[in-house]
């Protein structure tokens, strides 16, 4: 349907509704019903039908429940966008709040509370108050939640009218369990938000909520609640700290049968309570694990695929925490053919974790079958898993047998993974060299193509030259192909291996050493060149000296650095039954803000919400990065780590999910534009920016006039220098001097942050950081007043630009607040001149 047709139909609908508005003919309800249905169906497919608002409201006087519901739905959808029209609905909604039918009373009250128009709040208080006292449970249920909605719109109106106190009374006394549950839900939210407003009372109230009488009154009627309300109660109970162990046991006895609930959410909430109740009772804790194991294993295998994965993620935590407990249940973690790759990966980790002396054979046998899996990623992972198990256990014969099998498969990636595995094994257990070397000796070096595997093979050839008669000749082959070897890692390893072999079998390798060193010295890669030079000079000092440095006696590696940190094991207490468990990131790595207080009334404009909640709405992946413990690194290190992180893609389950791509884009495009920055300008951010400026001028990209940036008394310094740490510190310390929202027609065409950055730099405003994706970009700028000392007179700006709405939001902080208005004027003028 094209736009004109649609418009015509809307006009048509409008007039039809208008005619029906006052009509009392028989059968009119049916016609209305059809028309309403049409309107709602347009709404459903995303067509804006808000123009029919007044007609819809006019037709709303009806006794037909379905019609009413459609009308409520419509009003709820559009009222916020049309506050002046919303007023029209108040009348009929209020009337419906006094209907004889409790269903209509409830629905009307729900719609009334869902209008969320600030200036209509006064009409809400009365119906809410009577709703809470209504004789019907359904209406009270709606009213209890309505209080929370009111709180989100107007917190003070809610508390001033003593609504929380009314909820508290209902919480303890209402006969209807659903009313109690909704009161609980609303109170928890309200108190949590109140902490920011009046901390003392809110904390006291919350303590009251978590007090013994409240908790017990809820626990005693837990079976009356719906499964969802049970989850809510259980979550609250998990925060309650019992006074002694008897109380803990009482609570666990009351709740034990919840573990047999069909709803997995109830089961997990119960488990969380158990874990928390026994946190300080080590022996009971173990029993709890035993008790919760069976229901979890059942849930993993019996429900939908989605449930399976979510439960499995929790089980994964449990397995990491107490692997021994599952040593007999390892079969549950065998991969199924139909499991998605992400489930298989999780299962492989679990199999690795639960392996012990009693089950290693079976587990390794199973893992070996996956090595032949069609799914290459899983085949690789399973070989690595065998390696990890081998590093933990002592069953050398079984493992070496497997390795032989892997190599016999003659698949390049299997061979590659196996070689890396053997190398790790040898570093930890040099005593196995005999068995392993026999295996490695059979590998044809031509079949190995992956750098990691090549490096592993070369390392072994160098290290075990005595055990492999043809080691020098294999290495010689590698040296001959020096120029074709693309990986610096392999070339580095080759230099070392050849030098080591020279100490062991000099006659066979002296020629090759010469060739390798000269190739190394000529190598374009800095590290390779340096290593070749180092060896060369060491050898000049004498062979013994060189050998002492290059090939000293080695100690076996006892623990590899990448093994599980104990910190992760404790996550089970903090994060059990949370989303972060499922998407596999500890919550501290992620956004963990709670929506508190008034829910922002702004509409989402895109994936990146804007507005006053910016601090909360940071891209999650950014926070991941923020927590990378490299906060102390300098800017260039930081950049490296970001690139590494985006390669590692640990933020999400798929590399493409992360926001890194867009964030690191600025650098990439820059380095592409300016491929050969001279070393001296690359040292400080400020210097580079000026060089950028020069380049821009050189390339004629900007046609602005630098000398007349804006009409203002304030002059900015040409090369302000502020390091990221200082920026961060200042941003934290300074108060917001001004916040401006304004429209910016000229940014609509912005598709990357670059052009705007260049423009600002040309006008002496430097950028500290930028990011985001169309249509929303975020920038941090800074500038410095011209005649100020090096460490003061800075202006810091946070700019959020939305290209789709052509709007921007500017937040300015200044060392000297008195200069802020001048700077603001300057900044906005500069911003306004962008693109002209």
């Amino acid at each position, binding site marked *: 349907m094209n736009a004109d047709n649609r418009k015509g139909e809307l006009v048509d609908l409008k007039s039809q509704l208008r005619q029906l508005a006052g009509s009392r003919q028989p059968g009119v*309800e049916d016609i209305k019903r059809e028309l309403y249905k049409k309107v*709602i169906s347009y709404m459903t497919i995303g067509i804006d039908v808000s123009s029919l608002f007044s007609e819809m409201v006019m037709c709303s006087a009806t*006794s037909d*429940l*379905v019609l009413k519901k459609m009308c409520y739905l419509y009003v709820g959808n559009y009222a916020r966008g049309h506050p002046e029209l919303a007023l029209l609905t108040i009348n009929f909604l209020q009337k419906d709040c006094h209907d*004889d039918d409790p269903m*209509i009373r409830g629905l009307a009250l729900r719609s009334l509370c869902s209008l969320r128009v600030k200036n209509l709040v006064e009409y809400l208080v009365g119906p809410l108050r009577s709703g809470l006292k209504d004789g*019907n449970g359904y209406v009270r249920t709606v009213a209890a*939640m309505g209080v929370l*909605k009111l709180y989100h719109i107007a917190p003070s109106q809610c508390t001033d009218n003593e609504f929380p106190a009314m909820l508290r009374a209902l919480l303890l006394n209402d006969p209807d369990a659903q009313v109690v549950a909704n009161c609980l839900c609303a109170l928890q*939210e309200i108190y*949590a938000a109140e902490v920011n407003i009046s901390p003392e009372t809110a904390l006291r109230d919350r303590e009251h909520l*978590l007090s013994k009488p409240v908790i017990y009154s809820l626990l005693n009627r837990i079976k009356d609640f719906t*499964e*969802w309300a049970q989850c*809510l109660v259980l*979550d*609250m109970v998990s925060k309650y700290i019992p006074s002694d162990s008897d109380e803990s046991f009482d609570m666990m006895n009351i709740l034990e049968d919840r573990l047999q609930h*069909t*709803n*997995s959410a109830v089961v*997990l*909430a119960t488990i969380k309570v158990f874990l928390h109740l026994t946190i300080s009772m080590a022996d009971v804790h173990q029993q709890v694990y035993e008790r919760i194991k*069976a*229901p979890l*294993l*059942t849930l993993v295998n019996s429900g*939908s695929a*989605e449930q399976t*994965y979510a*439960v499995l993620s929790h089980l994964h935590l449990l397995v990491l925490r107490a692997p021994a407990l599952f040593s007999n249940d390892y079969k549950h973690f*065998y991969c*199924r*053919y139909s499991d998605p790759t992400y489930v298989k990966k999780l299962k492989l980790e679990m199999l690795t974790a639960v392996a012990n002396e009693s089950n290693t054979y079976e587990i390794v046998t199973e893992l070996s079958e996956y090595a032949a899996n*069609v799914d290459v990623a899983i085949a690789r992972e399973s070989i690595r898993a065998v390696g990890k198990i081998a590093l933990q256990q002592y069953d050398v014969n079984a493992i070496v047998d497997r390795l032989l099998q892997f190599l016999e498969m003659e698949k390049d990636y299997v061979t590659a993974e196996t070689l890396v595995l053997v190398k790790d094994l040898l570093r930890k257990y040099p005593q196995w060299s005999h068995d392993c070397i026999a295996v490695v000796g059979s590998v044809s070096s031509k079949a190995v193509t992956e750098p990691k595997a090549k490096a592993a093979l070369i390392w072994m050839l160098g290290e075990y030259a005595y055990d492999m008669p043809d080691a020098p000749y294999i290495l010689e082959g590698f040296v001959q192909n020096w120029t074709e070897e693309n990986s610096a890692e392999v070339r580095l390893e080759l230099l070392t291996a050849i030098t080591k072999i020279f100490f062991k079998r000099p006659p066979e390798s002296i020629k090759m050493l010469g060739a390798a060193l000269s190739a190394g010295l000529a190598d374009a890669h800095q590290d390779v060149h340096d290593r070749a030079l180092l060896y060369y000079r060491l050898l000049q000092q004498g062979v013994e000296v060189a050998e002492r440095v290059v090939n000293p006696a080695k100690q076996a590696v006892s623990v590899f650095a990448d093994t599980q940190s104990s910190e992760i094991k404790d996550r089970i207490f903090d994060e059990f039954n*949370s*989303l972060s468990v*499922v*998407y596999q990131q500890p919550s501290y790595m*992620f956004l963990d803000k*709670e*929506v508190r207080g008034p*829910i922002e*009334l702004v509409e*989402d404009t895109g994936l990146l919400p804007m507005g006053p909640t*910016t601090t909360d709405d940071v891209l999650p992946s*950014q926070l991941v990065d923020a927590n990378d413990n490299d906060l102390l690194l300098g*800017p260039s290190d930081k*950049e490296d780590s970001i690139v590494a992180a985006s390669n590692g893609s640990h933020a*999400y389950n798929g590399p493409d*999910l992360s*926001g890194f791509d867009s*964030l690191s884009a600025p*650098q990439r495009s820059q380095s592409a534009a300016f491929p050969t920055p001279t070393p001296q300008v690359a040292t400080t951010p400020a210097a580079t920016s000026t060089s950028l400026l020069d380049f821009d001028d050189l390339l004629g990209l900007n046609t602005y006039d630098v000398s007349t940036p804006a009409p203002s008394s304030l002059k900015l310094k040409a090369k302000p220098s502020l390091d*990221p740490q200082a920026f961060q510190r200042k941003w934290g310390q300074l108060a917001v001097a001004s916040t401006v929202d304004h429209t910016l027609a000229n940014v609509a065409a912005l598709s990357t942050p670059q052009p705007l*950055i260049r423009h600002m730099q040309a006008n002496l405003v430097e950028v500290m950081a930028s*990011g985001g994706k169309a249509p929303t970009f*975020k*920038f*941090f700028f800074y500038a410095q007043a011209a005649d100020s000392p090096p460490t003061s007179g800075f202006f810091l700006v946070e700019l959020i630009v939305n290209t789709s709405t052509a709007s921007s939001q500017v937040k300015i902080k200044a060392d000297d607040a008195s200069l802020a208005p001048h700077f603001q004027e300057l900044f906005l003028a500069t911003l306004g001149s962008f693109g002209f």
Partner: protein
Amino acid sequence: MIRPLIFFFSFLLLLVSNSAEQGHEDRSGLAIMLHCVFILSDTGEIMLEKHWMGHQVDRSICAWFWKQAHPSERQETIQVPTVVAAPTYYVLHIVREGITFLACAKTEMPPLLGIEFLGRVADVLTEYLGGLNEDLVKDNFVIIYQLLDEMMDHGFPLTTEPSILKEMILPANLVSRVISVVTGTSTTLSSTLPSTTSSSVPWRASGIKHAKNEVYFDLVEEMDATVNKDGFLARCEVYGEVLGSSRLSGMPDVSLTFTNPSILNDVSFHPCVRIQAWESNQKLSFVPPDGSFKLMSYRIKNLKNTPIYVRPQFSSGGGVVTVTVMVGIRANVGKPVDNITLQLVLPPSVASSDLTANHGSVLPNHTTKVTTWTIGRIPKDKAPCLSGKLQLEAGLERLREYPTFLVGFKIMGVALSGLRSDRVDINRVDYSAYRGFRAVTRAGNYEIRS
């Protein structure tokens, strides 16, 4: 140089602005808040959306999700886990019958609560619409809006029991029927509303009346088994469910006993089951919900045998693989094994296949490389056998990845685990009702690696 330091500033700001909250580990408010639900068709089209938190979650989140879930056009199934973190929301999803139910949350919440809720939405819709597909969803949006409105308020689940919902919202077919019968009058159901919500048995309304009283139980077992390369049964378990279908008047008290409950390894129950009665004498005692419901589910581990055997043999050389697969009855379970199927998933290195069987039909699919052999029931006079050759891609001598067989079967009238019920009693009512009990076993995830 411009550095994407933005994140770490923002993080810092977060710390600054929230320092008060962080001080006391502020997690006390449980925000079970699903902001919205989107229902998507199998092509990712948004068929319906429902927002609960007052402000609209932008539709673009669905496009984002769809792109993540289908990184390449080729992939038809969703490639992301059930919970993913989008730039602005946590996105939870489930897929039922090709329809994706997607929910957004802004804060931490118990993941299974979201997943179970979405599952319940799908179940309720299926029951209301008599199925679940694109057309049904699009035709019945008014009903779906009403349902979603009663199932959740302000992001917190309310009632999801179909029997209670039916008291408040008439199923589509009933609505039209009522309208046609009672023309011109309202179809409100107010008279029944008060009783349900304050009922002491939240899953059942009072005053239910049926002309014919009957209750059926279906024992449905699925066998999961993996046979490894060497022919060993690596694992074999049974997952079972007791599904009830009740059309009983009044407030009946039903009890169901098993002859051999001790074989059950782990059980979970519908909220109606009195767990104490189960624990003291292994008897299921309950007031059933009206309509169909899942009474109980259980797991029985370490079964020693599968009812049928599958013996694959591969020998390869010179780029050709010779295949023979024999299938037969291993252990007599007392009833015939029906609907036997065998899916042979060929590795990518197989260029073409030529397989025939001496019984049943063989259907190769060249694009997915899955060959399906439909056997049905094993004949008395011969052993079914699939044989033929696989041609490997040029340059390959031998088969390197070995195919996996997925086996399907169905046994009517018997539970493979041996679980049996010996009686169903109905108390506290003054009528006699028909009672039925059936059992069926199906292959769940039964795979044979070769």
